[in-house]
């Protein structure tokens, strides 16, 4: 209910709500108050223009147009609501048929609905108006039935999507019957869009009714609705235009009111809190973060990517959110660095930030962000685009959605060479075919002419890597490149990345939630938690060298092929940190078995030890008693 009331908070929603309420009130009161005024015949004032007595003039019997328009509100609204009721009832029956009656009958009903819905409402309304005859009752059924297929289709789509959800399957498996399923699980979860669309439908019915009456097919004399008044008024538009304009305006106001009310409710329910998010203040061009005389642990020539104090900020409903909070790392030529963390740890945003792909409204700040010595914080220039386009390549998580579905594969690869290397169409395509071959795609000439949907998932991901090889990359940033793939395909992609790295001396930043994947491919692992790096250690023997309790828990919580079958797995109680609500002190403290008061108060810095390993923990390396903390605190929210 609270969410419904939020409609009133937007100016448009408020206006629409007030107007709708006004129309409804008028529909109730107007006939009680003004029926006599509306029917009073003033023979001295036939077809007169507006005057003090008759604000909108009079009709051909000298009756007051203004009062007649007000009184007509009730019939217009009543008929519209009646027609909407017909549409909703018939639509619900049609839309739930396939859920209740089984697949075969459902398919037939759905096919019929799909054919009917292709015909515009006014055409269906005319068709039914012929069958039901001219007049108000006929028009109610005509407009109701004309609206039913659209409502039926909407219901059917919604019911099908909720019906396919696992909680409905689970209830089915538990033996819950179809009717109960429909009323207990399906309809409550689709009721909001249905109610919203019925409201919009009422506005539409009101307008359609005006249309039918305007054609002379709806309400007949001596009754009158707005459409009928329009029908009578249009013939005398040169004599008293207000005879047509007054009811016309009433139709528009009422129709818009219902329509906009429905749309505002839809927006309030669907979009939720968005809209109230304030934009971030503009960031000055100067450095926000002072450059610290940071210790250099690498030769500058050797460093491909150098990141210092990287912060990513997004606006949130309660102030800015920092999903990445000041991280620093460097990647040397040919080095493979893995970044691991759970969802919300900021690892993917880190990948996007170093590639300059964090779009509005996010903001990236750093005291240093260099690729091959070039400052990436500078504004977007042609030279910078060329550098990024040829020296940095990206591999994204989902190969299914990361290619343009409307273009052939070859063209999508060739585009890079055409744009950054100035190759002609043919030369660029030849290079694309060559690159596809280099990522072990068989018959690349033929494949280049195919569309993305004709590739399998693994092939697409290899093509994505091939696209990154159109230039001469010094760094490949791969964001969960194998998460969407099957295990055997995953291995092919990892092997490919490894061999490219070896052959071309390319550096790799591999983002993953899977410690074992990173451990297999990378030289070094950065562990991220709540937007910071908590540990930086060599990949060679993760289990032995991990000192941060989070890293150790991650390694122990996931079974591998050598896990002791008789011991329970280590567990991490609680849930990952919400970036909008990062606690003070160490972000991991609430879940950490070693946490002390200091951890809750003071955030541990990322300290570098003699061997160049980094860890951010007050109790790094202290022994953990792996007692089973299996009982989760349910109320720890």
């Amino acid at each position, binding site marked *: 209910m609270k969410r419904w009331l939020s409609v009133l908070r937007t100016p448009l929603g408020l206006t629409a709500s007030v107007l709708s309420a006004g129309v409804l009130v008028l529909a109730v009161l107007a006939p009680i108050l003004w029926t006599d005024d509306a029917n009073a015949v003033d023979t001295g004032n036939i077809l007169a223009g507006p005057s003090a007595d008759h604000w909108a003039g009079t009709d051909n019997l000298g009756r007051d147009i203004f009062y007649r328009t007000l009184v007509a509100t009730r019939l217009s609204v009543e008929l519209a609501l009646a027609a909407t009721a017909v549409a909703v009832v018939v639509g619900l029956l049609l839309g739930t048929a396939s859920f209740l009656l089984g697949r075969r009958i459902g398919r037939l009903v759905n096919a019929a609905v799909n054919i009917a819905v*292709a015909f515009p409402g006014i055409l269906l309304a005319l068709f039914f108006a012929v069958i039901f005859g001219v007049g108000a009752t006929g028009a109610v059924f005509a407009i109701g039935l004309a609206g039913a297929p659209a409502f039926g289709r909407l219901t059917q789509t919604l019911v099908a999507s909720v019906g396919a959800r696992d909680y409905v399957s689970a209830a089915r498996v538990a033996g819950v019957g179809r009717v109960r399923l429909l009323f207990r699980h399906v309809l409550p979860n689709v009721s909001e869009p249905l109610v919203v669309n019925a409201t919009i439908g009422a506005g539409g019915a009101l307008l359609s009714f005006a249309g039918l009456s305007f054609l002379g097919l709806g309400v007949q004399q001596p009754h009158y609705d707005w459409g009928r008044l329009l029908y009578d008024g249009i013939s005398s538009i040169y004599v008293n235009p207000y005879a047509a304009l007054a009811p016309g305006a009433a139709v528009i106001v009422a129709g818009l009111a219902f329509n906009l009310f429905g749309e505002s409710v839809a927006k309030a329910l669907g979009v939720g809190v968005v809209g109230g998010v304030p934009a971030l203040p503009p960031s000055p061009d100067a450095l926000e973060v002072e450059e610290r005389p940071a210790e250099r642990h690498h030769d500058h020539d050797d460093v491909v990517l150098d990141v210092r104090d990287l912060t990513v900020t997004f606006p949130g409903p309660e102030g800015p959110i920092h999903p990445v909070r000041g991280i620093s790392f460097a990647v040397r030529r040919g080095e493979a660095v893995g970044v691991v963390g759970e969802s919300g740890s900021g690892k993917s945003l880190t990948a996007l930030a170093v590639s300059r792909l964090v779009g509005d409204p996010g903001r990236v700040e750093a005291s240093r962000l260099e690729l091959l010595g070039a400052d990436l914080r500078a504004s977007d220039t042609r030279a910078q685009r060329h550098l990024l386009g040829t020296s940095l390549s990206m591999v994204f998580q989902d190969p299914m959605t990361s290619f343009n579905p409307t273009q052939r594969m070859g063209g999508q690869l060739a*585009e890079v060479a055409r744009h950054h290397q100035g190759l002609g169409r043919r030369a660029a395509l030849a290079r694309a075919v060559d690159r596809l071959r280099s990522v072990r795609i068989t018959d690349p000439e033929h494949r280049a002419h195919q569309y993305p949907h004709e590739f*399998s998932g693994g092939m697409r991901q290899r093509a994505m890597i091939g696209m990154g090889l159109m230039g001469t990359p010094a760094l490949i940033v791969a964001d969960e490149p194998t998460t969407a793939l099957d295990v055997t395909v995953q291995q092919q992609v990892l092997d490919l990345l490894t061999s490219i790295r070896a052959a071309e001396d390319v550096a790799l930043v591999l983002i993953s939630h899977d410690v074992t994947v990173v451990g297999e491919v990378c030289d070094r692992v950065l562990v991220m938690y709540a937007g910071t790096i908590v540990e930086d250690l060599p990949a060679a023997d993760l289990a032995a060298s991990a000192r941060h309790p989070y890293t150790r828990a991650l390694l122990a919580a996931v079974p591998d092929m050598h896990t002791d079958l008789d011991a329970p797995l280590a567990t991490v109680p609680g849930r990952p940190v919400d970036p909008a609500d990062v606690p003070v002190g160490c972000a991991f403290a609430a879940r950490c078995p070693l946490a002390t008061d200091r951890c809750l108060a003071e955030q541990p810095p990322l300290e570098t030890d003699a061997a160049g390993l980094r860890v951010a923990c007050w109790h790094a390396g202290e022994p953990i008693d792996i007692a089973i903390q299996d009982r989760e605190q349910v109320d720890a929210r």
Partner: protein
Amino acid sequence: MTLAGSVAQAPRLGVSSHPWVRFGVRRVGRLLVSLWVLVTASFLMIHLIPGDAVRAALGPTAPASLVAAKREEMGLDDPILVQYWHYLQHLVTGDLGTSIVSQLPVSDVVSQRLPATLQLALLAFVVAVAVAVPLGVTMGVLTRRGHGRRTELGFTTTSVVLGTIPDFLVGVGLVYVFGVNLGWLPVAGNDTPSAYVLPVLALAIGPAAILSRIIRVEMVAVLEADFVRTARAKRLPARTVYLRHALPNALTASLTLGGLILSAMVAGTVLVENVFAWPGLGSTIVSSILNKDYQVVQAIVLVYGAGVLLVNTVVDVALALLDPRSMIRED
């Protein structure tokens, strides 16, 4: 996943399994089924009218013998399946029957009135698309990712309002402003080129508003898509990203809904023609309904329905050209 998987595994067969052939066969099949439903519905229309259609048309004063003779002539006393068979036979030869009121062949009435309606619908169609596509794309780019909040609010409000006002009321407003008040343009008939302006506008404004709003929403959504991020990762210039990568996808997404709106324009001519006394099918069908001239009504419903099916088919083919996946998705 499953879709892509099965596609990738599908063996390569001969020409008969070429996606375009399969698409064509399926699409023609659907068109034929829809046509059959339409023809049957228009046939049944006369039989579903409560009471005697001939009696209704000739009026309560007509002698019973005349009604009986007319029923005989129209074959209304035959078994219904026989009548259906004759109806189909006549349709194939282009014979739509005879008007019970004017005694003229219905096919003459239709062919006389059709061109005016076609002109009106096509012109409005072109105007609506020509306005909506550039406007929607521009607005989409201007209001992407929470940019231009005010522009978005202004545009959305205007387009919702314009899209909600039904075409015949737009027509009435145009008549009042440009005909009655200013006297610039003619408000009835189709005798001069200037007489086309108001009816075409009345028919096109609403659909143009709705269509541009849909295109804006789709454009904004497509600009968030993974493949647009890929295009940006290739460091292509903004223009290329918008026009080559975003636009075709935004259009395919808009076309499905857009098709419904465009076919609604075909039917919208009924009301607009009545506002502007346009000598087309729309004004004829209304007067025929009021005169209970059901043979003419039946024929015009058929023509309108066929027009809608034609628009739908054209939209589907355009969709298939723009997005090769849409051919498979229908499976």
